[in-house]
């Protein structure tokens, strides 16, 4: 007992010394430890040099942290300048009022609404799949699954989130579409329906995990209050927990919408490249992202109008997704219930 306490009181000191040694030694020469206390002349740390190193490191790291800001600036500026060039040639009203998207044809038209309608279509189908699946899984994981089962289900959903989208595209085109064609006779080989459905599966984990966080954050006291009134578990979840988590759930859905709008490979592979205005899910259609892929695959010379359409479409896409992201952050802040 006594021995123990002696050892304990000495140990920190030992560690202390070796730490001094390490810190002093690491940037410069190493000094034998024993000579520390005996030879005062050794106590001349080169403060100036180490402070200069510190300053240098600080500046370099600061520069690195600047890269992320520069990325944003780069995105905004490249999109902006090419889009401005595009609108110099094609007046902006044509972009928003024309009803055909045929930039590579002789009689070129630039109605972005065509691509937007396809994006809206696939995104709506995706959300129609992902919202019930994601929200119900979130409820299952947070309210019904035992900790053990949860430990299996949650990583499985994470795997779903980690599957590369090109793989989902393969699955949509070569598994889901043939399957659906057996049920829906008129379904084309490329169609918005199976692309949208698989896209929905791809964003389900996003809704599930963000909604689960929101549900998890609902304090226990609220559930207790509901149970104490004679509510069943479902009544407590539906009438108390979900409304209390609403801001987080809505935010997760908005982020999922944003993700679905920007998703590229699933729609490029399975929804086709047929730019026609309309919301028929059974036929081939071309989303904004699929258009960018189509043009990128060809060898498009910089400065050509086709090259500039990439950026005009990209800007539209960027503005839409950024708007949704900002809106979702604002929404959470504005409507988050504060519990103490």
């Amino acid at each position, binding site marked *: 007992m006594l021995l123990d306490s002696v050892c304990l009181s000495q140990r920190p000191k030992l560690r202390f010394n070796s730490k001094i040694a390490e810190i002093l030694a690491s940037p410069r020469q190493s000094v034998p430890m024993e000579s520390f206390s005996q030879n005062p002349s050794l106590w001349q740390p080169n403060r100036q040099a180490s402070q200069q190193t510190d300053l240098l490191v600080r500046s370099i790291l600061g520069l690195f942290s600047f890269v992320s800001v520069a990325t944003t600036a780069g995105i905004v500026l490249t999109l902006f300048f090419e889009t401005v060039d595009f609108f110099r040639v094609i007046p902006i009203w044509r972009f928003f009022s024309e009803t055909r998207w045929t930039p590579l044809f002789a009689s070129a038209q630039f109605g972005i609404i065509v691509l937007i309608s396809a994006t809206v279509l696939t995104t709506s189908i995706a959300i129609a799949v992902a919202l019930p699946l994601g929200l119900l899984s979130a409820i299952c994981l947070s309210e019904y699954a035992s900790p053990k089962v949860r430990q299996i289900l949650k990583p499985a959903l994470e795997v779903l989130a980690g599957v590369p989208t090109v793989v989902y595209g393969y699955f949509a085109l070569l598994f889901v579409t043939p399957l659906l064609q057996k049920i829906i006779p008129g379904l084309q080989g490329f169609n918005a329906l199976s692309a949208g459905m698989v896209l929905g599966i791809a964003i389900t984990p996003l809704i599930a995990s963000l909604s689960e966080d929101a549900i998890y954050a609902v304090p226990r006291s609220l559930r207790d209050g509901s149970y104490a009134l004679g*509510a069943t578990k479902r009544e407590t979840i539906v*009438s108390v927990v979900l409304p209390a988590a609403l801001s987080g759930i809505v935010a997760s859905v908005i982020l999922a919408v944003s993700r679905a709008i920007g998703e590229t490979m699933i729609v490029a592979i399975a929804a086709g490249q047929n730019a026609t205005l309309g919301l028929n899910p059974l036929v081939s259609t071309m989303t904004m992202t699929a258009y960018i892929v189509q043009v990128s695959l060809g060898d498009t010379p910089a400065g050509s109008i086709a090259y500039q359409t990439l950026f005009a479409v990209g800007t539209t896409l960027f503005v839409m997704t950024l708007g949704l992201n900002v809106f979702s952050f604002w929404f959470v802040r504005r409507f988050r219930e504060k519990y103490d």
Partner: protein
Amino acid sequence: MQSPTAVLSARSVSVYYGSSLAVRQVSLDIPRGEIVAFIGPSGCGKSTILRCFNRMNDLVASARVEGQITYNDRDLYGPKVDAVAIRSRIGMVFQRPNPFPKSIYENIAFGARINGYRGNMDELVEGSLRRAALWDEVKDKLRDSGLALSGGQQQRLCIARAVAIQPEVILMDEPCSALDPISTLRIEELIKELSGDYTIVIVTHNMQQASRVSDRTAFFNAEATDAGSKVGYLVEYDRTERIFHEPAQEATRDYVTGRFG
């Protein structure tokens, strides 16, 4: 010694959390229409026993209740008894006000609706808010969020919410501990007013509160076990005047006179 008028009665009730015993061998009767106060040092199991009375402990996976509790002479933990049905007859008010993030109106209507209330909802809401002495303060903002009220108002809203489903018993776990003195007084008045129609069990750390509002008082204490953990038990249960003026136990006297150490 089961009194004929007991609504709730506990016989040798012990509660475990996992393998550790939290409260042991509690036996007491809650007479109909009376206010019973539970007092005692922190951690002696007052809340634990209280939560046995409306089976809130069912929601804690590790909790296990031994012994017998009867509610109107029926075994509360019997095989055919449904916890949800019990909770709509035995309401509860918590230490911290926990209004739902809904409108004031909906806070009250929720319990009534799920329990299949068939009368006029507006009247029920108004009546319950009046019962809880809150009507005058909120009658013009029934659509506002319950969270927008002050702490004292929130707690009265929670009481109104409990009253709205017309339970037989209301359990209150330190309902005033998060409130200022004036709100506390208002709630105390409210409790006395409700006492004719409801049986009320109230946990409190406030000695004066117990002596002011209650008809009977149960004093709980905790003692250390060999394993080093604490286990609570019922020391003395009697009419409130006796507990405060001529208690049978030394420990009770020390506690109520503040000489507890």
